Each structure stands twice: as C-alpha cells, then as structure tokens.
C-alpha cells in the first residue's frame, strides 16, 4: 500500500488553496460501534486549512472517538478519511504521524523523571544528539512563545509548562494538523489565554490546521473559527464562530429536554419530580459545606470556595463537566482530602476533614466515583467487602465472628439482590454492576444520614443503572440527604430535586428541578454566568 509522502500534502494544499476550496482534513460518514454502543454515528467533519476548528460536546458525545480514528488509534467500521482531497488509510498512529497529524492528549504522555529535551526526542530512532535536541526545544519554544528550560526535569514543571512540552513535542515535527483534546482542563485562566495565542500563531504563521476539542463555550467562542457540535455520537450542528453566541452553542450541546419523564416514570420517581420543590425546602439541613477550599499537591486549585447544603429527603444533583472539582468533592466526603479552608457540617456539627474514617463515623455514606480505587478491596471476599467500614458490627473486641460476617453478608446479598455464587467469592470476580451493589449495600447498611453517590451508574449496564437509580431515589424517600455527583445530565435530571452546577471547583449556579432551563444549565456548565 502506498503511503502519501507525509506532511507536504496537507501543507501544500493549505498554502495553495483559498479557504473552503479543498478541506485540509475531511471525515466522511464515519461510523464506529463498540458492542451495542454507537460511539460515532455517520459523522462527517470538514476542516479548512489554517483554521482553528472547534469540536464541542458533552462527555460521551463521541468527540474523542472521532479524533482517535483520525490519529489511527481506533479503526472505524465504515467511512472515509480524506486529507487535502486524497483518500488516506490511517490504520495506526505511525501512519497518522507520517501524514502530519499530531495530537496533544488530555492526559499528558511525558516521563516525569526525564528531562524536557529527552522527552522531546522520546520514541525517535537512531543516535541521541543531546545538543541538537536542546537546540530544537529552544528554537520551537522561541518561535511559538513556549518558553521552557530543556534541561529541567518534567517532574519539576507546572502543569502549564508540561503542556508546553507536549506542544513542543508535536510542533517540532511541523505537523499539518494539530489536535488538542480538552487542552485547558488542567490550565489556569492565564495559561489558557497564552495557549490560544500560541495556537493562533501556529495557524497564521505556519498555516497549520488545528482541531480543538472542548466543552467550554467561552473557549470555543474565543479561540475558534468554526465549530462542529456533537451530541450522542452524531453531529447536531455546524456554526461559524463569528455568527453564533454562547446560548446558541449551549442549546445545541445539551439538546432538547431529554426523555427524562419516561425514564423517571419507569423507575418510579415521578412523584419525586412533581414534589421536587417541596422536598427541597422542608427537611433539616443534613450536610452543609461552607466555602471549602483545597489545593492539589502540584498547586492546582481543586475546590475554590465551594458552598452547598443538602436537606433530609432531598437529592441535590451536582451537574458539571468532568474535571471541575467533582472528584475532589467526593474525596472530601470520603475523608481522603484535607481542606485549606472552609467547613463541612453533618447534621449541624462540624466534621474534621482528612481524618481517616471521620466522615463515615459522622454518618456520611459514599458510593465513590472509582469503586476500585476506594470503594472496595478487590482481593477480599464479598462478605468482607460488605463490612469494610463496619467491622465492629460483626466482631467482638478482638475477633471477627465468621458467623456474624456470613449472616450479615447473606442478609445484604438478598436485600440488595447481588448476584454472587457465595459470600466468599472474591470481589474481583464480580461484574461492575454487582460490585457497585456491594458498595451501595455496605454504605446504606451503616444507616447514613447523608449519602454521596458519585457517578453511580458509570460503566453499568441498563439493568444495573435502573437498579442504582431506584435505590438512590429510595434512599431519599427514607429521609437520607443525597448528594448526587454526575456528569450525566440525564441522570441528574431524572433523580435530583435541585440541581447545582460545579465549575472550576465552585458552585456557579443552582435551580430547582422544576425550574431547570437547559439553556441556562448548558451555559453554566460551560463556565458562563447565567
């Protein structure tokens, strides 16, 4: 198979053709299925040479899969890729690189214990020429305003600087097409601005084409020339950035009111939705966070002045785009995160943060976002996992009673309908849905006054999702204050009485379920005050 001689095609096409004549990259009718899930459904995308093209959509809209297809990480089921008007086959990342396609992934691929220049030449063949590599890093850095010391260790760099290294890695190959996946999710505002001016320089000076994946409306409006909006694996809108505004984009990104009401009635939470407003104002406040602030180890702010409260019998949904402080919020209520400032009160009394087990003792049950990391111990049995946090209930002062352990396990397995051959089965062998049931059963068995459910249905099949949804709803009916943290808007709209939007570590807006205005919600999730 003949391979087009790399970057020249994209580049020469870019310089020669006036805008819109021959697209720099064109994806035609791309479809990709993963099992029964359609990640990309007949998607077409056309990007002009030398433009910054925005790709906007919520989590799971199919943006990343589309770009993985373009970079050769995923092979599409059908469809065609054209570069500069010629058909190309991108079957592996090497081919993509040879075609001049470079991508900066959301999660950096740098070796922390190596120097910047070493990272820049990583993966290259032949002799390592240190002086040359350092010169290249300096040159590329100067040309694009990406100053970074080539001899610094990556571990010692800030997140913004690390991204510069990633960009230098890409740009030194002079790519015809540069793809950035959520590049600003780890950056400060100033760093983001800097990045966009670099991108502008790259497109105007070098006529490089840039695809910018984002869910931040401001960013799209500020930095792109045109934008393609995806939802549910399909393209739902295309806009010239100059002729659109945040409202328009938000509406397209979030879509019409999802089929919430049918879903809600299916799991029996209809009445809750109808009475949503009432429940929110009646019960006692069980959980109150006041101006909580926390910083990550690398100095990145995690929570910046977040305040919220949840009443007994109420479900407060925390909506927002992934990476805006949801994980930190979950960690805080799992006693895994210590605060720089602010207070957490449960049932009216302050709870010390970051002290092992303190939240649990105060009556906070947590179904954590990553159940494998903190929700269970995979190499212990199901019965043992069911008592991780309440060991005292099945033991005397010294010994664990095997009889009580088994009895409790049998009771919870039956009550929560956990499909498991025996209580002694290792947790590792259970399906995701059943593992999640074990976690939920354990947390509810402790009779919490507050239940935190973080992405409770992520990765679960339809049946398990329905089960979790119903259980969470039931918990609220039983008078537990439920904090539902989810990036699935539909899940929040199905369950929550009240919706709060989290953005950059703080609650930026709040509304009752009855007053939910999707456009406003979309604007807030995209970081626009509304």
């Amino acid at each position, binding site marked *: 198979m003949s391979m087009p001689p790399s970057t020249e095609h994209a580049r020469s096409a870019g310089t020669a053709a006036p805008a819109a004549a021959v697209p720099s990259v064109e994806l035609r009718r791309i479809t990709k299925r993963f099992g029964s899930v359609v990640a990309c459904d007949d998607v077409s995308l056309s990007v002009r040479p030398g433009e910054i093209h925005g790709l906007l959509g919520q989590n799971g809209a199919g943006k990343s899969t589309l770009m993985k297809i373009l970079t050769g990480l995923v092979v599409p089921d059908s469809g065609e890729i054209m570069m500069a008007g010629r058909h190309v086959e991108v079957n592996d990342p090497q081919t993509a690189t040879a075609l001049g396609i470079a991508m900066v992934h959301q999660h950096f691929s740098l070796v922390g214990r190596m120097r910047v220049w070493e990272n820049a030449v990583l993966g290259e063949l032949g002799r390592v020429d240190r002086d040359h590599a350092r010169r290249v890093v300096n040159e590329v850095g100067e040309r694009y305003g990406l100053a970074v010391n080539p001899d610094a260790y990556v571990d010692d760099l800030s997140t913004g600087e690390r991204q510069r290294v990633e960009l230098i890695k890409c740009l030194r190959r002079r790519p015809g097409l540069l793809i950035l996946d959520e590049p600003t999710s780890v950056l400060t505002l100033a760093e983001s601005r800097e990045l966009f001016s670099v991108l502008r320089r790259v497109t105007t000076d070098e006529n490089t084409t840039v695809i910018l994946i984002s869910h931040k409306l401001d960013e799209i409006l500020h930095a792109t020339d045109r934008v393609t909006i995806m939802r549910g694996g399909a393209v739902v809108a295309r806009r010239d950035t100059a002729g659109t505004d945040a409202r328009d984009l938000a509406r397209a990104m979030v879509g019409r009111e999802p089929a919430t009401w049918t879903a809600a009635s299916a799991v029996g939470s209809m009445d809750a939705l109808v009475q949503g407003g009432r429940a929110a104002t009646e019960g006692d406040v069980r959980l109150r966070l006041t101006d909580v602030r926390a910083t990550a180890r690398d100095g990145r702010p995690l929570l910046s002045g977040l305040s919220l409260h949840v009443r007994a019998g109420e479900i407060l949904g925390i909506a927002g785009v992934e990476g805006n402080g949801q994980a930190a919020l979950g960690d805080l209520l799992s006693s895994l995160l210590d605060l720089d400032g602010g207070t957490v009160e449960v049932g009216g009394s302050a709870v010390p943060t970051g002290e092992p087990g303190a939240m*649990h003792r105060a009556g906070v049950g947590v179904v954590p976002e990553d159940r494998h990391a903190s929700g269970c111990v995979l190499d212990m049995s199901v019965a043992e996992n069911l008592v991780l946090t309440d060991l005292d209930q099945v033991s005397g002062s010294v010994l664990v009673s095997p009889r009580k352990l088994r009895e409790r396990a049998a009771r919870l397995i039956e009550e929560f309908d956990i499909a498991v051959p025996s209580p002694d089965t290792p947790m590792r062998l259970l399906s995701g849905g059943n593992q999640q049931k074990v976690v939920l059963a354990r947390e509810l068995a402790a009779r919490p006054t507050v239940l935190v459910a973080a992405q409770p249905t992520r990765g679960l099949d339809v049946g398990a999702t329905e089960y979790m949804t119903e259980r969470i709803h039931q918990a609220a009916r039983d008078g537990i204050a439920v904090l539902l943290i989810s990036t699935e808007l539909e899940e929040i709209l199905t369950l929550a009485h009240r919706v709060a939007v989290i953005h950059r570590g703080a609650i930026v807006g709040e509304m009752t379920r009855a007053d939910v205005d999707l456009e406003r919600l979309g604007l807030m999730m995209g970081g626009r005050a509304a």
Partner: protein
Amino acid sequence: MTLTRPGARHADRAPVRSRLRTPLLYAVSFAVALALAAALVTVGGHSMADALLALYQGSLDGGASIGQTIDETTPLLIVAIGAIVSARAGIFNIGQEGQLIVGAAAGAAIGLFVPGPGWLVGALALLGAALAGALWAGIPAVLYYWRGVDVVVATLLMVFVAMQLVSFAVNRDYLLQETAVEGQILSPQSDLLPEGVRLPRLGEYPDFNLGTGFVIALAVTGVVAYLLRHGKWGFRLRMLGLNPVAARRAGVRAAALGGGALLLSGGAAGLAGGVMLTGGVYRIQAGFADNVGWEGLLVALVARNHPLVAIPVALFFGVLRAGGGFLASTGVPRYLVSVVTALLVLAAAFPAAYAELRKRRRPAVEA
C-alpha cells in the same frame, strides 16, 4: 506467552495454567540447582552423593541432628512470622538481620548486667531483645510516616548500622566485651550468659537434645496465624495492604496500623535474636546473626506470607543450615558448602520471587 498479556479473556484460563506452573517451576529450579551444585562439588574433587548423604546425616539422621535442625529452624520461623505481618500490611521490612543482632545485643546486656533471679532475667532478656528489634525497625517507620523515606531502603541500611554498632560494643571492655582473664588477649565477644538466664534444654548430647526456643516460635506463629485469620487486627491489616485508599476511607490509620506492623516485624526479629542468644549461643559477637535475618525473610517469601506454611518452609531452611554445618565437618570446604546450600535456597525461593515480580509488574502492564 499469552500469560504475559492479562485481560478479561484470559481470566478463566489463567488459574489452570498457574496451578500447573507452580510445581513445574519448583521442579525445574531444584533440578537446575542440584545440577549446578553437583557440577561444583565434582569439579572440587568430591562426590555429590557423599555430599547429599552428609547433608542428610547432619540434619535428619539421629536425635542430635534432628534437634540441631529444629534449633536452626526456630529463629528462622520467628523472623519469618514478623516479615509476614509487615508484608500483609503492604510494608516491606528487609532489615531483619540488623534488628535481630540489635535484639540479641540488648538481650545480652540484660542477661549479663541485670541482677535478679535467673528465670526473670531470662524473660527480661527476651523481652528486651524484642523491644530493641522493634526500636530498630521503629526508626525507618518514623522516617517513612514523617518524611516519606522508603521503608525498603531505610530498613536495609539500618542493617549495616546495627552490625557496626554491635561490633563496636563487643570491642569495648566498658560495654559488652568479655571480662579480662590474666594472660589472655580479649576477643571481640561478650561473656557467656550465666546458666540461670539461659533457656532450658531438653535432652543431652549426643542423644536427642533441643532448646526450648521452638515453643516460643510455635506460640508466636500460632497467635499471629490466628489473629491474621480471625482477628479485627488481621482484617484491617489485610485491608491496608490490599487497598490503602479504601482502608483510609474506612477509618484505618495507616501510620498506626502499618507502623505498628513494621514495629512488630522488627520485634519478632529481635526476639529471634534473643532466642538464639539465650537458647544456644549464649554470647554475642559481631558475626552473631549469621544470615538468619536474611534467610528468615526468604522463608516468608517462599511461604508466600502464610504463617502456617512458614513452619515447613522454615524447617527446610533449618535442614540446610544444620546439614551444611555437618557437611563442612566431613572435609568439604566451607565455601563449597555455602555455595551448595545457597543454590538450594535459591531454588526454593525462585518460584515465589518470580510470582511476586510478575504480580508487581502486572498493574504497570495493564495501565
């Protein structure tokens, strides 16, 4: 080999393969070790058959030999139990050799200089040995939980500090060195413990004879095995070792529980030193530890951190130690004996070490 690529699809096939793989691995590694040993012994001008016979005679043939084997097994087992406790908490203490000799030195100091009835001083010597071993492991524990200093490195380096410390003490007549006798040059060793302080022995040479330290070893093993399996402490220890994040969420204080496990493992090594001292050696010198700490660690490794499995494994290592001593006395050079027993130890440790390595590499491969 498909086994190097873990994944859901292989999950059902892996157990069968690994069940077959383990005995096979043991067979192969022992065959290789024996072949190498035979080659070395033959090249050295001796007969391998004679050597194996001597190994057997020195360890299992007759009451005196069996007693010798059990005496060698006792400290190995105590050290191994301690190593198992810390490994269960996910902490790798590899400084037993140093903790053992520091414990023995403390035991010797108590046994020699503390007045009182012999049985009481003997008990105090054992207790002091355990405490000193715990203290020696406590320094790395504090460094780790206070400053994040790697436990493996810190415990290892403390071995050499311990060696120097004991060597210093047995070379100073105002510390542990033996009391001067007219006309004799002082050796770098302590006085012999008084009779009353020593652990009683059963039987007499040349018949079956045995120190009572093995009772202590079995008691320690039994209690630890029981508590690890049925105790709240063992439950929490496993939780901490298998998933520290989940343990923290559930209210386990890593510094207290994990640090405690590290102290216990040091205490066990110290106790092993005390048992060796009061049970048969009776005096401390620079070479006192004689690799018992390292080999006890290997026992834990081969037993894959199961306290009850550690009993037969420690016995096997005890056989090699006792038999090796006898083999040396039949005229095979000492270095050759060391090489042969080391090869057999390697053969026993290799499959477990290999499994451990694979287990640690797997998450990296998956990620």
